[in-house]
């Protein structure tokens, strides 16, 4: 089935659908990871985005029940070079097409994804529409122009959990104030801005009882649970657009050890009084080199972000940069000098991607004493 991709700047690309008819819009971004499409598809940080994989062959190993990073597919649409319909992997429980179709997510193949990627690299992340129903370039470009972007938009309230839940051996389990969590050494409250399950898995593995709470949860409510530590998850969109949370985080600063990842990290930055900006086309992939300034060692990291904390805006003397991105010198990690609060822009929980940065979770455990 023929499909058309239209970008707000008027560019179009052709392809064919491998998931049947449909139309969807979002910010078009590329991910350079060569494996891990299932984790990418289910990563809430991609809310509002259409993802294209730069690796051309997708679907090879199918999908399984173990590699979901959230309860549902989060991307608005998926663009690949060649969809491989017959999976081959001992863990595979189904094909990628079935997985997408079940959740009505449009998948497009036979696209010159390298051309698309190069276009985004030069033009920057763009709003776009993909469709099998409207194949008229002009009208589709118009739709792209009309579609909502990400800047200033609060996507967190769309993806954060409605009810608090705990993390147990067999995944999420409804319940508040650690009621549904197996007993453990540390009690950690996790703010869900669109978190990835692997963050919870890694905490649980480290003897943490994990209580996930909605983004709107107040500082008082959290402190009332008397946690040993507070975790701020990743999430979609523009941190500046997220309502209320920044103040909450500011209140919690210094009260308990705090660890933030990606959007969580950006929100901490804003709470410190720093500012954020939008990268031209973001960092999305599994090969971004990050240097730990304390050890001078390089870790290869998994990344997925379009916004970034402005290094120059960090409050002098209060907050210091701990990690830097070797490709573009952007801020990758920071720590508060007075309080036990640290955060990174990349994804130490990986899934998908290298495990080089898992040590940060151990650091968090240490911080909780």
């Amino acid at each position, binding site marked *: 089935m023929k499909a058309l991709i239209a970008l707000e700047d008027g560019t179009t690309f052709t392809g064919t659908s491998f998931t049947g008819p449909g139309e969807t819009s979002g910010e078009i971004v590329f991910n350079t990871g060569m494996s891990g499409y299932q984790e990418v598809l289910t990563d809430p940080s991609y809310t509002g985005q259409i993802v294209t994989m*730069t690796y051309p062959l997708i679907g090879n190993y199918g999908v399984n029940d173990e590699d979901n990073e959230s309860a549902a597919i989060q991307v608005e649409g998926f663009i690949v070079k060649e969809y491989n319909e017959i999976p081959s992997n001992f863990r595979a429980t189904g094909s990628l097409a079935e997985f997408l179709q079940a959740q009505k997510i449009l998948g497009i193949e036979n696209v010159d994804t390298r051309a698309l990627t190069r276009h985004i690299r030069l033009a920057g992340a763009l709003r776009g529409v993909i469709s099998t129903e409207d194949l008229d370039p002009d009208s589709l470009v118009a739709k792209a122009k009309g579609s909502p972007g990400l800047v200033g938009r609060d996507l967190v309230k769309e993806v954060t959990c409605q009810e608090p839940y705990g993390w147990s051996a067999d995944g999420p389990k409804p319940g508040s104030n650690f009621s549904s969590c197996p007993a453990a050494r540390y009690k950690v409250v996790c703010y869900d801005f669109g978190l990835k399950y692997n963050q919870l898995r890694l905490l649980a593995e480290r003897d943490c009882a994990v209580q996930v709470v909605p983004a709107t949860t107040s500082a008082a409510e959290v402190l009332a649970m008397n946690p040993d530590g507070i975790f701020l998850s990743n999430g979609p969109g523009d941190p500046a657009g997220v309502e209320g949370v920044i103040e909450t985080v500011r209140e919690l600063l210094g009260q308990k050890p705090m660890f933030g990842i990606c959007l969580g990290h950006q929100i901490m930055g804003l709470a410190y009084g720093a500012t954020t900006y939008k990268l031209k086309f973001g960092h999305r992939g599994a090969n971004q*080199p990050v240097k730990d300034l304390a050890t001078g060692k390089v870790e290869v990291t998994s990344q997925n972000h379009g916004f970034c904390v402005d290094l120059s805006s960090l409050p002098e003397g209060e907050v210091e940069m701990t990690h830097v991105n070797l*490709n573009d010198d952007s801020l990758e990690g920071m720590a508060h000098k007075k309080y036990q609060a640290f955060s990174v822009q990349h994804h130490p929980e990986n*899934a998908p*991607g290298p*495990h080089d940065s898992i040590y940060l979770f151990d650091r968090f455990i240490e911080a909780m004493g």
Partner: protein
Amino acid sequence: MPKRTDIKKILIIGSGPIIISQACEFDYSGTQAVKALKEEGYEVILINSNPATIMTDPEIADRTYIEPITPAMVAKIIEKERPDALLPTLGGQTGLNTAIKVAEMGVLDKYKVELLAADIDVIKKAEGRDSFREAMYKIGLKVPESAIVHTIDEAMAAADKIGFPVIVRPSFTLGGTGGGVAYNSQELEEMCTAGLDLSLNTEVMLERSLLGWKEYELEVMRDRNDNVVIICSIENMDAMGVHTGDSITVAPAQTLSDREYQEMRNASIAIIREIGVETGGSNVQFAVNPEDGELMIIEMNPRVSRSSALASKATGFPIAKIAAKLAVGYTLDEIQNDITRETYAAFEPTIDYTVIKIPRWTFEKFPEAEDILTTAMKSVGETMAIGRTFKEAMQKGLRSLEIGISGFGGHAKFDLAGMDQRDLEMQLKKPNSQRIFALHEALVRDMGVERIFELTAMDPWFLHNLAQIYGLEKEIKEGGFQGLKGDFLRRCKQYGFSDSQLAFLTGTSESDIWQLREQENEQPVYKLVDTCAAEFEAHTPYYYSTYEEENEARASEGRKVMILGGGPNRIGQGIEFDYCCVHASFALREMGIESIMVNSNPETVSTDYDTSDKLYFEPLTKEDVMHIINSEKPDGVIVQFGGQTPLNLAVALDAMDVPIMGTPPDAIDRAEDRERFQKFLQKLGLKQPANDTARNAEQAHEIAAEIGYPVVVRPSYVLGGRAMRIVYNEEDLTRYMFEAVQASADHPILIDKFLKDAIEIDVDAICDGKTVVIGGIMQHIEEAGIHSGDSACVLPAHGLSDKMLAEIKEATRAMALELGVIGLMNVQYAVKEETLYIIEVNPRASRTVPFVSKATGVPLAKLATKVMAGKTLNELGFTSEVAIDHYAVKEAVFPFDRFDNVDTLLGPEMKSTGEVMGMDHDLGLAFAKSQFGAGQSIPSEGAVLISVRDSDKETIVAVAHELASFGFSIVGTKGTASFLNDNGVECTRVNKVSEGRPHLLDKIHDHGIQWIINTSMGTRTTEDSFTIRRAALDYHLPYTTTIAGAQAMTRAIASLRGQDLQVKSVQEYF
């Protein structure tokens, strides 16, 4: 960390001659490393016995020793040069093993030479199977259950525990030599005998069989700050049991989810740390159980390898270059990524295409050997192809092989339609060089992926993709020529179908399809290999073709020349031709002309992205080459350097008005076409052995009788001496006509008078159309009848009369001018009774060009390039042959030990895979060096076994006499013994095998023989002489199969008495 300043001089050990499992990839790696170290201001000393390498060019290292890579020689060089450090990880297994031995000799300690990258314990920990498994257990990784044994009995006992089949694997050997799968105790005994003998430390490991598991490789790099990155993952299409060097492999891994991939990544990192490789690259091999993903470690190589070369070409990340910089102290985050220029080497390349590597085998040259693939590598070359999809890459890869196929199916050759079903299933089950054709036939017979998987254990993912290609093949057939249009035509090209396949499937011609695509405007685009999937801008123009929307090729202004490479290595066409192509590129750069390289061989220097201004990694077919020409519009195309591959394209390209540089294609035809060549020689009054062409058996017999036996016969349509035989009588001829070839009107048989006991001469010359200058006149050591590529040769020619030398020069001059050669020309002559015969003329760069260049210090290929680009030899200041006051001996290296049951007799069909050079002021010593370099030892005392055919008995007397005078005892078989005794040489007789025990094998076994001289009529005459030669091989005894060889060896022994070998760098020679 900045680079180290405490070391100034670094010694690098190369990998020596091209052999199976150690080919030009180590020239590629080594050259990169040497350049990188010099860039950093270090003084680099190099030893490599292989003259055909770029790394041994005088301007690459500061001092270059083209000497045998033996511990003794390396020790001499260390003593003379006093390097601060030795970098042992670039010369393959040879470099590594030699470094270990030198260290054990105490030489490194004595002269305070530091081992860079990996010290002895590290190397041993990784290479010793035992210590390696210990290490793996320590970090919680699994290795297949196994036992280390040192005797046959231990082996038997262990096998009972592990259970058959068991994998037999000697420690410290190349490419798994001597290894294999033993299905029963008898096979086990055979393999262990060989294995224990081959292993550096008589240690063999028996291992639980993982046959049928999936096999993977990861390329890892580590710096001294303990940063570790993965450069590339490779998945083998052939399951465990087929050596990775013999497997079709794909990058990146295709059937691993991120979890499984990360598990492998973590394991690789843990391994390189535990083994303790300080800096540089390593290669880790994994086996994965397809049932449940269980992971086992197969091995790790703590050095650059064939796979790391492949990984470098597949990703654009220059592993060897970076490894060299890490070795001198840089860290990954300090080294810039050449391709993006804005990022660093501290990252993991990500690719947005699929790469496939397909081996090229050479079983047809060793008919006695069974065509099966096991844990010991057998392929002599490989080709790599890049496509956006696996299907496209697979089809490009197959047509890159240059074995007469144009893709996966859709060609006449290797059609298995007639094959019995049971045989077909056997072909699928037993890995062999033809399996890809069996796979196609299985799809044709609709056997189904399930069944094919059962038989081959190839991952269904690969099989499904192949099935999709075949599915489209059927559609193409059904749709016919009419069907080929619009989206369907595009889909065909995207699936990698070549015009030739489409023509075959639609019963049209390649040019029909070509024209059709011009009308339909269906043309390929070119995309960049950039290490980063377009995330950053790429600055190095390294291209591959595909059928998509955006074209990234940037045809530049200014004068540019395209060089067509030689494709995959094969016997008869190897590194020598790549050397010439690379020199062409260097010469163009010197002239300020843009160079565009086209090649499909990942092992080579020519496919290094910074060798030429532009690199197109593409198949060398007319279609693929014409596409590039149409896109780049070069001012000229060089076809005379890449061997037969580009030469075979010359006429076709010429017909399409491509500007061929240098010698006109018609001259090539004139030299290759029998009739035209005869007229040509007659015109010049030059002699050729009496010859004629037979179109059927009767004719052949008439002609042979007419010319008189012995005769040389060969099919007219094959090159490289294929299926060429010397036929001594009627019966032989009958057999040949029956077995070897089916003569027919369009496939005639060429019959030449065999010039017996003639001296063969090789001449390389260069001509600008007016002036001819001889590059070198080489005298073969073995007589004519032994392929020029297989015989040792000496420069300068020492045994010819001045009159004959003058005649040779004159003939060469005359032929070059008459042919209108612009560039290089090679002539093979035979001299018999002061008469000069022309054997063949090749108006192109020959296999001997690098040898001559290294021996004389004249860069022939560069000069030739400049001549082709319009300069005259006068302008280039090269107007007369250079005389040298030393001797250079080229010796060939053979793969016989790789193939069971193969005879080591030499003949007119080339069998060698590589060569070495020995240089010295004394001919005997030069020859000695060539022998050591080729891995042949030279006895100084003991017994020499002589067993020669009657015609040789006269001449061998002198040799035996001299040997006896050196104190050797002479042992001989019946005939030879009595003949020698009658002629005053004391000779003890020994039984042939057929004469009952104790026979000579017993004697050999008890180390009672130190050298074997055995000549035999034509092909493997009596079983007896065969067993002698084979025993020599199996027991690593020096053996000589020609009188000339025996004389040369005796001369070497004479020279070695009293004086010992000295080392001298090429820079000191010139």
